[in-house]
């Protein structure tokens, strides 16, 4: 591929985007940074607090530190669990979709539907579905004798949120994987048949390697989305029982909008944001690596 010409005038093209990014993220973040290093005695009177908020936040022995720590680990555990279910399930389902025919169109359309439902409605759907009195899922489980109660039983709540996320977002993994699979030329499958390869060998040696890049994107997107999940748990469990399903976003919003604890909220926001930045950077590097190896 010919080298791209260097043209610094191209910045002009990106000016509109830059303007929006400035407005949408830089200016707001400055506000946050501002609050995170100041304290207030009320009545709009601020004084410098340096790294005070951060120290409290990152120290598990303080109240805020403990709360942040818990929420962070809760969220990471949730992300990991969701990923462990969604990625294999997504790939498996993508393998089940045929390469052409009417089944493809129907499957993709049906699968896209959960992703187009407003997140609060997703919450509502499952709020109803998991109730023992009016929901099929809740009634079925309770009928089988399982102690299932989303609002009172922490395990039920956790498993339910995972199931909701799997229901809601596995289609994204499926669609990405399917696109990746479709990009594999027929000749590879044909050659594998001639070589006498088993279905499993085809998966390991042809499909999985060719899906690398897609899977990295899928894992990145899903990790990020689970890491900042907010609406669905709020609607279904309210963050409970207790704080069993109070993930980072939920906690942050409680602190920021609920109380007048701007300093804590701001510090928490920044740390939260930095974590996402770091993860993003790691994935970006991995993707670049894969690209470089592929072009070699």
């Amino acid at each position, binding site marked *: 591929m010919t080298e*791209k*010409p260097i043209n*610094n*005038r*191209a*910045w002009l*093209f990106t000016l*509109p*985007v*830059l303007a929006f990014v400035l407005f*949408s*993220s830089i*200016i*707001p*973040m400055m*506000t*946050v940074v501002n609050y995170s290093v100041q304290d207030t005695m009320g009545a709009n009177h601020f004084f410098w607090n340096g790294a005070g908020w951060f120290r409290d936040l990152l120290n598990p022995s303080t109240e805020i530190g403990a709360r942040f720590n818990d929420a962070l680990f809760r969220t990471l555990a949730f992300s990991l669990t969701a990923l462990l279910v969604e990625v294999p399930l997504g790939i498996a389902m993508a*393998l*089940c*979709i045929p390469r052409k025919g009417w*089944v*493809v*169109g129907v*499957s*993709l*359309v049906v*699968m896209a*539907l*959960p992703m*187009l*439902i*407003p*997140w*609060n*409605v997703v919450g*509502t*759907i*499952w709020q*109803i*579905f998991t109730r023992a009195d*009016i929901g099929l899922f809740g009634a079925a489980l309770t009928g089988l004798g399982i102690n299932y109660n989303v609002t009172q039983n922490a395990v039920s709540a956790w498993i339910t949120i995972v199931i909701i996320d799997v229901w809601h977002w596995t*289609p994204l993994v499926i669609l*990405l994987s*399917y696109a*990746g699979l479709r*990009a594999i030329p027929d000749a590879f499958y044909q050659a594998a048949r001639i070589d006498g390869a088993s279905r499993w060998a085809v998966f390991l040696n042809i499909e999985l390697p060719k899906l690398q*890049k897609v899977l990295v994107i899928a894992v*990145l997107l899903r990790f990020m989305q689970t890491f*900042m999940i907010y609406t669905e748990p709020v609607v279904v469990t309210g963050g409970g029982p207790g704080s069993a399903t109070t993930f*980072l*976003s939920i906690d942050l*919003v409680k602190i920021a909008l609920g109380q007048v604890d*701007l300093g804590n*909220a701001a510090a928490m*926001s920044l740390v939260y*944001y930095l974590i*996402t*930045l770091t993860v*993003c*950077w790691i994935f970006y590097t991995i993707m670049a690596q894969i690209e470089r190896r592929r072009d070699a």
Partner: protein
Amino acid sequence: MRQGLAPRLVLLVYLLLLMLPIYWLVNMSLRTNSEIMSGLVLWPHHPTLAKYRAIFNDPSWVHAFGVSLTYVAINTVISVAVALPAAYAFNRYRFIGDKHLFFWLLTNLMAPAAVFAMPFFQLYYAVGLFDTVWAVALAHCLFNVPLAVWILEGFVGGVPREIDETAAIDGYSFPRFFIRIFLPLIANGVGVTAFFCFMFSWVEELLATTLTSSNALPFAAVMTRSYSASGMDWALLASAGVLTMIPGAVVIWFVRNHIAKGFALGRV
């Protein structure tokens, strides 16, 4: 061809399970509250559109639906329009800081809305846009603009650079080239991008409710008010929920042929 019966069955079961909660919601929406509370049935025995009628006849519901559609539409138009030149630049040229800018856009895509809820609240209040559709439309640009740039850049890459060069040789000015020649070539990509912008703006709820209070309440906020004296109005809630799925279903139907291609995004 290479598929046996088993994968088809598995797929079918998965699709059925996927539709089950949605079906349940539709089921709820076609019944009355007293009927719902009296017992669990698998399909409505006396289906009624009463709750749907209630929603259509209630101006606050209708207004809210319009509000939601409006800010989504505004956001989609802005995101795509702003992203197009940037996507072109990222794909066709190298410039100082291009890799860094691209990465930074990507991080905005991943930014937790919760982090921005409070700052946005203050910002939009300060510029007087609080409680308008514009606040939500602009706020959603936080993630939709980077997404649009990302997707469009892939599609721009699918057009050979020779076309640009030929147009330049043929004497086209850049704006004319872009609008008359280039845009039709990536029409597909623009459609896919618009679809994704629509999707992510339509479904987002935290920012939409934080930045509005009475005039520009989105549908989601009105839904949370579905309490009555006798407890949760499940049937009403369910009907409202079903209505929110319709724009999504309509949009998928229109882009159904491009979904797989769109997800490829030129990046697989």
